[in-house]
């Protein structure tokens, strides 16, 4: 394998992960230069179409960084981010894109070194699995087209209503673990996704 220099797009929340990234700089902790950052006030802002659009547009991987569970500056925005993330993972899986290409993780404002650890490990991982398509054994360009269609689907009312229902149930049950949230999203979005994929999201 030739040396691969992955392109990684990050969505960092202003209060925790973005601050952690700044404090990593202030402390001169070094990490691989692959990440490009989009600052958001909260990971709760993460629209499911953002990561998909990022992958479609040329990213080899997407990172979403927020506050630790229970420590969201806006109370529970990062839980909603988990819902969006679950849909992204679900779609990636259906498209046959490696789950590893999308990571949502946490670092508090005081955790510059932790941020560095996360980004270093993630960059290494993505370097190992190679450019989009390689680990998937598929044509990268085709995959990106499918991802663009998936991003479009993530903007559709039907799929978003599925997410609303998943979010509602998560908030009601107050179970915020990743498997539980993923299960909820799978549940609420399965039908719409089935239809979409039956119609052939790939072919569109």
């Amino acid at each position: 394998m030739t040396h691969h220099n992955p392109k990684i797009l990050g969505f960092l929340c202003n209060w925790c992960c973005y601050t952690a990234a700044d404090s990593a700089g202030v402390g001169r902790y070094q990490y691989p230069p692959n990440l490009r950052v989009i600052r958001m006030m909260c990971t709760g802002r993460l629209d499911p179409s953002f990561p998909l659009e990022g992958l479609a547009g040329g990213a080899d991987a997407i990172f979403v960084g927020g506050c630790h569970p229970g420590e969201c500056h806006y109370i529970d925005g990062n839980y909603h981010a988990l819902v969006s993330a679950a849909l992204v993972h679900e779609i990636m899986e259906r498209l046959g894109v490696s789950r590893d290409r999308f990571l949502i993780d946490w670092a508090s404002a005081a955790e510059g070194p932790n941020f560095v650890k996360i980004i270093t490990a993630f960059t290494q991982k993505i370097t190992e699995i190679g450019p989009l398509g390689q680990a998937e054994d598929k044509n990268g360009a085709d995959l990106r087209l499918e991802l663009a269609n998936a991003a479009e689907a993530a903007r559709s009312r039907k799929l978003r209503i599925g997410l609303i229902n998943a979010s509602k149930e998560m908030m009601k049950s107050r179970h915020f673990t990743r498997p539980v949230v993923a299960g909820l999203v799978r549940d609420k979005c399965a039908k719409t996704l089935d239809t979409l994929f039956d119609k052939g999201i790939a072919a569109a």
Partner: protein
Amino acid sequence: MNAARTNNSATTSGAVMVIGGGVAGVQTALDLTELGYKVYLVEKSAAIGGVMARLDKTFPTNDCSLCILAPKLVEAGRDPNITIITLAELEDLSGEPGRFTARIRKKPRYIDEEVCTGCGQCTLYCLKQIGNDFNENLENSHAAHIDFSQAVPTSYHIDAKSCLRLNHDTCGLCAVACRAGAIRFDEKEKMLDIAVGAVVLAPGFGRVSDEVMAKYGLGRFKDVVTAFEHERLMCASGPTGGEILRISDKKHPKKIAFLQCIGSRDETCDNNYCSSVCCMYAIKQATLAREHDPDCEITLFYMDIRTHGKGFDAARQRAIKENNFRVIYARPPKVENVIDGGLLLTWSSEDGRHHYEKFDLVVLSQGLEAPHGAEQLAAASGIELNEYLFAATANFTPLATSRPGVYVIGAFQGPKDIPDSVTQAGGAAALCAGQLAPARASETIKATFPKERDIEGEEPRVGVFVCHCGINIGGVVNVPAVADYAGTLPHVVYSSRNLYSCSQDAQKMLVDTIHEHKLNRLVVAACTPRTHEPLFQATMREAGLNRSLFEMANIRDQCSWVHMHEPEAATEKAKDAVRMAVAKACHLTALAEQQLPVTPGALVVGAGLAGLTAALAIADQGFGVTLVERSKDLGGKALLLSADRYGNKPGKSMTEVVQRINKHKKIKVLTNAHVTAVSGYVGNFSTSVTTARGTEVINHGVTVLATGGTPYQPSQYLYGQSARVLTQLDLEKRLGTGKPLPRSTRQVVMIQCVGSRGEDLSYCSRVCCGQALKNAIRLKALAPDLRITILYRDIRAYGFMEDDYRQARKLGIIFSRYDIGNKPEVALGKGRNSPLTVKYFDHLLGDSVEIACEMLVLSTGIVPEDPTDLAKILKVPVTADKFLLEAHVKLQPVDLPVDGTFVCGLAHSPRSMDETIAQAQAAAGRACQPLARGFVTPAPIVSQINPETCIGCGACESFCPYKAITIYKNGKQRKARTITASCKGCGVCAARCPTLAIDMGRFTYDGIMAQIHAFGEQK
């Protein structure tokens, strides 16, 4: 609490004079205008900024010093309520608190500040060369000059002592060259009489004389430099452009030695005290020397390593380990030269052996002295000085001088670092505001901005400014290439670069450029929006642009600093960041500002010394305070101390404070009370406090956390197993009874750092060394024949506490240093009543020593009360050591990152009583700013709902954590609406809206998409 009281508003002045424009003076001036007072900022030199402006970086974060200071200087220069008077000194202070008349002697600048455009033609044409004082005379400047390019005021001036025209009536070329016609050779010295209500002295510190440093070869050997010179050599804007070069041969030194305690802890020059900052700055300078040259050998010579501040020990450890420094516990007495060049140091190590070695460069870590002219200033202001010519203050009123209405902050109050100076600045502002409360806002005016230009319908015209940040960015990222690249991006009509984009002259340039090129969006590629966005947004307002039309690309904290060894990759990353920022900027729109009223009261959590002090300082300013205490009594842990190092009884002072609290009409005390829930935002918090009587909801504008700490409980060294083993606090208690020692006590041993500095507690608790010294001296006073041995790792008797250390040694107390790897061992004696045996390694003997002692005293640290629950409720971050994490360790030391929330006392970090008081007063001062202003203007990043596409499903309403969205009926249709005042801009509603009908201010869907697509263009 130490505010002089005046209640006659008719005659009380609403103005304060601040003497000294260093970081402390500037900070107190800014704090005072925010609190509603007019400030006269009197600076001896031609520009504000003080020593901090001359520093390259700051410990422990190695943040760029000028970068974090410059926004404050610019803000002070802009503030219509701050009058900066340069080249001026206090001549006399008459009158009484509230009604002083300050007489100021103002020397001429010979260049009219109002007219000077800062073009620099005068310097270019000036024939007279003089040393560049700002660069420690390591290069030349001219008689007509500006001290440094970011100077505020941004105006040149003429050195009266050397100007050819002023002294010999020749030349005068500058007057010809000056297109603005600003040269005023006939300007005369002026005396100004200014009416003020209070005075804050912040003249900073003085330098150790060259005579003292001559012992170490300064002046004789070119390659012996002072730390101040070394600082300038490291700095990108310094005489060598940021290269550490030997003065003699302009070569990179390969072997550097740092000598500590130069002019400090030194009886031969009467500077007996410790300067409190040199250990830290030497580690910083050594770290930067390593950054400059990875192969250089670096040695630090210490007596004790005094890194006692918050996080300092960890930073020191990391620096020493990562940079491979050699640390030697020794004090080389002199520097000699050797025939083949190089500098010879000799020293004796702890085992008594002699060593010698050659070095290429010797850096003298010079201490801080009382400021030059301290005696004149004291005479002019009518205050008393201590024996070292620093301002005399008392332990319970650390910021009050001997004259009511005159306060002292910064190094003049005693040697101290930047965070402590900034803290004191906030404290003094609070005290002035308390003293002058009746006259608040009587002499201030409102800042006005030009009318905002309507850019509706205009094509985006983006200006991009790429910052070198000295060498912070420019040393890694190819800044010219990034600026050129920016110029090629769509909609960018102008791109350029600055050495420091945050400097005052750069702001002026930004405004001019915005006008000239009719820019309607601004992108600055520099540090982080978290610290610098407000500065640039204020500049946009000055240029008549809405502040929401701004975007920053973070190419320092998240680029040059984290990819220091990959300049090419960092440059590519910077280009990508700029492209993404420009893409987003094109989608920015002007957003309406909102003003929200403030509930004029504070909630203070914790009623120890910090909480009580903060509550009083807030209430004295006229705002209501609810003081919530978990236990049934007020007073906290200060009551465990039976005397301070001056012999005062803290209990007595605490009783007085508690009495004032109980009597104060503005303070409501709730004991046995717990905070159970908090909602709202700065200006409008609602907090549920639960007591035995039930739960009460308190509405308040700001919150001060003073949740305190508790003594570490040791299990080491037989504590709890033998009655002979005490902690220092146990001993304090016994000393309070007057009979501390069992009869027949002949030997006492004290062990320092029990459980601290890498044991159960990773940090240094700062106060234990002083407490041990104090208690040992107290014991010696009671029993002069008593033998006392103190086993320590470093004696951290910083500041004037060094006096105690010296006295203890004079009293015959024995000090022996131990290493963490070779701790003392303690064993029970054979019989029931026999003494303990303590075994420790004596460096001088090179062997273990065993002594019997009747009493063993353990110096244990401070553990913060676990703030986790409260921190979660309030959304404030906590460090790994469970202290609350401040917004900025240097310049916002008592602000928490959540607006309107502040911290003081042991919840912040371990500190002494006087430090706690100053810090609590600072928290009070900062907390009162929104209360005094009366309104807050939250960032307009709120959600906006498009009623055309909204289907009224109500998902947004159900997910909004702040109930900031309601559903209303529009005819038969349901629609959602944002309650702007309650919205905090998280964007959950937008991410869940099924029809994408909701968008966020500045973080719009299209804007983020544009960023994503711009990312995709990455090569």
